[in-house]
């Protein structure tokens, strides 16, 4: 209850300020939108289904791209953690590659795949793959050896050992990296969609700019923030809470 009160207090000040400034008409509405204009744009967008379609398209790209990142990132991370050769070669490359903004992969993607869905997925994968890889690698190193020894001792072998022991045991160590990977994938996707015009939330944002429709620009931005918040709350917060229930104090993960 107390929390709701502080929320209301905290947000009412900037919103009130916004309303006052909009009422005073200091700047024209195509530069400084009114709050009710943004609400109307949100309403209209959902009413004519264009927001629903954009959300569906963007989310589908996220699920595919992020899914690929998680699978390959884990495989790559495990490989680097268990092979001295890979560690010395690919290991050093990872950090330098991660400093490259993922949108830099778009020209290559367009040349390789053309203006297709594959190109945008490529950008999403390149944006999040490395953070998953790095966290899986450090997670695997921090993982106490006792779990896999106990697993082998109880008869687990090969893939079984990986699925039932190594993977669940390393989850607390990699959850931060998975979360970070999601955030990176989300940013890569939106920036990709903004440049590369084919549906999705990023394209809606650019369409707002093209039509000089400031209300729509703000509405889409609100939508992007809301979606990020929702996924974090529904997926990752739940995951973290469940891990804490099981492990007690979750082992500190360094990403």
């Amino acid at each position, binding site marked *: 209850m107390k929390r709701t009160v502080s929320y209301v207090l905290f947000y009412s000040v900037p919103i009130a300020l916004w309303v006052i400034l909009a009422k005073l008409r200091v700047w024209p509405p195509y530069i400084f939108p009114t709050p009710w204009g943004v609400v109307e744009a949100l309403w209209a967008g959902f009413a004519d289904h264009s927001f629903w379609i954009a959300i569906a398209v963007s989310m589908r790209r996220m699920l595919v791209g992020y899914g690929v990142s998680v699978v390959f990132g884990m495989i790559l991370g495990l490989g680097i953690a268990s092979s001295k050769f890979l560690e010395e070669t690919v290991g050093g490359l990872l950090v330098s590659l991660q400093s490259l903004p993922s949108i830099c992969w778009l020209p290559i993607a367009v040349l390789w795949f053309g203006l297709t869905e594959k190109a945008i997925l490529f950008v999403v994968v390149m944006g999040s793959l490395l953070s998953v890889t790095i966290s899986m690698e450090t997670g695997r190193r921090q993982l106490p050896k*006792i*779990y896999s*020894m*106990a*697993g*082998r*001792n*109880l*008869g*687990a*072998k090969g893939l*079984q050992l990986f699925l*039932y*022991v190594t993977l*669940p*045991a390393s*989850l607390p160590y990699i959850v931060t990296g998975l979360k970070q990977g999601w955030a990176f994938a989300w940013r890569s996707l939106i920036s990709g969609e903004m440049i590369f015009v084919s549906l999705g939330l990023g394209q809606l944002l650019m369409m707002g700019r093209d039509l000089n429709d400031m209300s729509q620009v703000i509405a889409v931005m609100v939508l992007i923030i809301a979606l990020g918040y929702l996924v974090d709350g529904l997926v990752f917060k739940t995951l973290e809470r469940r*891990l804490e*229930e*099981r*492990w*007690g*104090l979750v082992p500190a993960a360094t990403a």
Partner: protein
Amino acid sequence: MTPTPNSRTATPEAGSEHRLARTALLHPCEGNDFRVFPARTPASTPKVALNDICLAYSVNAKGKLIALDHINLQVQRGEFLCVVGPSGCGKSTLLHLVAGLQRQTSGEVLIDGRAVVGTGTDRILIFQELGLFPWLTVAQNVEFGMRMKAAPMLERAAKVDRYLRLVHLRQFKDSYIHQLSGGMRQRVALARALATEPDVLLMDEPFAALDAQTRDLLHDELERIWAETGRTIIFVTHNVREAVRLGDRVVLLTFRPGKVKSEYCIELARPRHLEDLEVASTARDILNDLREEINKSLEAEYDHEANR
């Protein structure tokens, strides 16, 4: 050495016949001469046989550390064998070899006369640090070995129930490991090992981290479970009194390289108790033997410090 006149001729106290049905008998095992194996043919194939086991680590280009040096040991079916020695004598390593988690440099480990290759659920090791899985409930931990074997659901559930009952943890079956006390975790590890129904149970200083009361309780429970299930147990400890309390036989290893120094048959009547006079005096005799090795290990440590 101080004489212990009462230890070998102690007479049973009134009202405690079950404790001391016989007088304490402490002597190097006769008729079980491990040094001449396999020339001597035993009455039946031993459950576990270590034949001439050597294990060496290469420390650097020229240096080699010999951890285990020509170990010969036999454990009969249903026997409770305790292995004691100073820290660093390779007693844990010995268990890892039997479990198949590590490979010896030469020699062989035989189970029922067949050489061990890799791990197998016929011998389960209870680690010193337990290695319980924190992401699984108590019941799922106990079930783990059976799940790996893809045993039928109903059978799994029945066995989980049975072994959790055996260690008195049935009401905690849905708890996670971090919610349990040290002694309870120890019992989960025991149930998890027993549930795969191994012929041989390997225990690596399992009670070292527990308080004295909990340890006493678990000694009683382990002795009872051993009697009920008839498993062969190899129990490693640094605590001689614990070894005498539990074992049919106590094997003493030397400090680096680990060799069998001596062997004692403990013929005290069961159930035994840690505070029994006979347990204490028997332990004292073994401890005198062990002290020499402990001193060697301490010296090695000091030398190491001095050389740095």
